């Protein structure tokens, strides 16, 4: 079977999974009685009087049979309405406006993680059991033992508290004001790109400055994982017969490593990378909180603290959807790299 058919098949398989996810979330919701769920929509404890609760239940259809509620909920979602949060703001609108910040952070981190991990893993594999390998190993194990928030706090204290540079937030205050003025058009919402598109490179520079520490914090753990997998995968590939044969053919070592060993070594790494990138959404919650960046993760953290069920579930839905898409991308990538998979 060729690549196209495989992709279509995988997409079709997506549907039941997404359905399952929504059912699961909905199921969790239903575990609470209408009363409890209503209470979540109320801001003031004093308002917890029977009439108010009745009204809230009516308003949000909390007493209808489950399948009706599910229908209303799902149709709402499919039309882009994720409901309102505790403060009666649209969840979808909040998420969309905060998305660019998170995307900026996630994309840069992904690049660092994947490229850095692959490169470092290759180096460690080629210089196996020598200094670079040992150093990488120690670094990697420390990396994934670190609590992300601790690393972030440490870096922030050292650089911002100690040296006064690389502060929290997405951009510094002055630049932030400038971007909100009419002199600056926000095309994408990503400061780094918008800066270039507007011809105001200092905006890009400032944004990059504020990205250094968060990206480092977010990437460190995941980078360690990728490095480790790449290393062992590469060691295995380099020991294979086809590498030996390629060398016996007279292929230059550089090409042997790149074309023969690495391409095969990348196969397991591709799978893990997919999950790691998807898992970034986890880390984003912590990183945005520590570095005070107003993104989706920060929204989720605040929502959880406020016991804002609707908002949290909206976030969960988005996240689950992203993960499922990532799974698909990983599978397709996998099939692209390894022709043996395509045969089913």
């Amino acid at each position, binding site marked *: 079977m060729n690549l196209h058919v495989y992709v279509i098949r995988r997409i079709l398989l997506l549907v039941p999974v997404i359905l399952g996810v929504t059912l699961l979330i909905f199921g969790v919701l239903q575990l609470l009685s209408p009363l409890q769920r209503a209470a979540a929509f109320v801001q003031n404890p004093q308002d917890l009087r029977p009439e108010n609760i009745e009204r809230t239940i009516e308003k949000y259809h909390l007493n209808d049979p489950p399948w009706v509620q599910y229908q209303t909920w799902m149709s709402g979602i499919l039309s882009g309405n994720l409901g309102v949060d505790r403060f009666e703001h649209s969840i979808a609108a909040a998420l969309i406006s905060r998305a660019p910040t998170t995307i900026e952070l996630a994309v840069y981190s992904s690049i660092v993680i994947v490229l850095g991990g692959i490169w470092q893993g290759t180096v460690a594999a080629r210089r196996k059991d020598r200094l670079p390998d040992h150093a990488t190993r120690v670094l990697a194990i420390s990396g994934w033992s670190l609590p992300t928030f601790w690393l972030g706090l440490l870096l922030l204290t050292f650089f911002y508290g100690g040296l006064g540079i690389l502060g929290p937030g997405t951009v510094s205050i002055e630049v932030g004001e400038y971007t909100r003025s009419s002199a600056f058009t926000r095309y994408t919402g990503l400061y780094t790109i918008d800066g270039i598109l507007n011809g105001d490179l200092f905006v890009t520079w400032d944004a990059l400055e504020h990205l250094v520490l968060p990206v480092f914090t977010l990437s460190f753990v995941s980078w360690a994982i990728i490095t480790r997998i790449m290393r062992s995968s590469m060691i295995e590939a380099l020991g294979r017969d086809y590498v030996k044969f390629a060398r016996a053919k007279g292929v230059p070592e550089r090409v042997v490593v790149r*074309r023969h060993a690495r391409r095969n070594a990348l196969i397991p790494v591709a799978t893990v990378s997919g999950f790691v990138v998807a898992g970034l959404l986890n880390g984003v919650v912590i990183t945005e909180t520590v570095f005070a960046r107003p993104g989706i993760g920060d929204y989720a953290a605040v929502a959880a603290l406020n016991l804002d069920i609707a908002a949290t579930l909206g976030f969960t839905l988005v996240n689950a959807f992203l993960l499922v898409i990532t799974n698909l991308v990983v599978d397709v990538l996998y099939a692209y790299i390894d022709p043996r998979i395509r045969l089913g």
Partner: protein
Amino acid sequence: MADPVLRVSGLKVNFYTYDGVVKALDGVSLDVAPHETLGLVGETGCGKSVTVNSLVKLIPIPPGRIESGRALLHWPVPCPHCRGKGCGTCGGSGKLDTCEACNGRGTCSACRGHGRFRDGKSCARCAGVGKCYACDATGKRHVDLLALSPRELREVRGSAMSMIFQEAMSALNPVLKIGEQVGESFYYHQREALCRATIARLEKEIERARGAATGAVRIVSLRLYLTLYRWMLNKTESRLLQFLRKVPVVRRYHRWIEKEMEQRSLEALRKVRIPAPEEVLKAYPHELSGGMTQRVVIAIALAGNPKVLVADEPTTALDVTIQSQILRLMQDLKAELGAAIIFITHDLAVIAQIADRVAVMYAGTIAETAPVREIFKRPLHPYTRGLIGAIPRPHQDLVRLSEIPGNVPNLVNPPGGCRFHPRCKFAKAEVCASEKPLLFDVGNGHLVACHMYDQNAPLWTDEDRQPRVEVVAR
């Protein structure tokens, strides 16, 4: 042997592992004559693969180390002046085949062949013998495989000396198409020829495009490619050219040379009698059968026109019918290309079928070397005698199959002296346990590493030395 294409002398290889130092090869010496098939036989673990792998440094070097030894390969190169066409320097042959050290004379350049200097001191380089060290007195151009730089080694591998391995399927990269893998040999060894052919093709295309209406743009790009290929002809390893392969539009230039590679790969596949080579080129290794992949591997190995082809148990993993097909193929190809083959196996029947000469290895040493008929009719070394004797003969009335008592020694602590002596019926403690036997010449191209055949060996009778095959009968 007068003029071997490959002469290995005193190859010593150790592996430094956590469990100790494995003395894998203890001074292995081999000669391979041009165009002959040398069968290298021995039990598993005796060092056959290590020997041939060491020649092109394919053994893992951190645990492994080539302690000493030389491997002289007779390798005339295309004359650099005329590039193979024939000129005064190369005497019209197009090839440069004189030993660089002695300029073809065959005598040691340090002592001028005398063996010692005016002041009486013995010449160290030729150990007083006077022969040219680099070419072993043949006067022809040789390279010492073990002393090559990585770059030179890369040139030898796949072109002067090729290897094929046991499991053909695992020798091919599963994520690359067959065509890409076969083309690789041509790409890295025959770049010049490929470039010239591509340039010729491009020039023809330009001619054709002149006539056509849409010619103009096409001619521009074609001319650009032409310049790039002329550049490649001059500087094969240009980094810039390689970089251009990554640049989106420009990298299409490489397609032209790939077409040439495809042509040659098709021819190579046809030569190994693969049906429907066009489809095989586009296939992946796992889509082919065992016999087909072995043919592909052979095609790759022969692509560079090697002087020596090393086949490391190529038929062991195949069933008998395929095996005989492959063996016949190899013999035919050898006749056509004139390569020498080192055929490693543990199957004496295969040896009998295709070898011209046989070398028997035991525990990291060469026990005996002889023409194939001699080995079977007159095995001299006690180990060989045991091996030949162990072949079951249907017409004999045996109660019990013959065997060699004892076990293959642990190479971390090998036996002293002759490594076979603990299992040898004829071993005499005085000499066999303490001195390692050299390869003694008993005439007829027959060499034995056994003290019994030392000309001054008083401890054995002629009766002992009779090439009687050992058979335990009842």
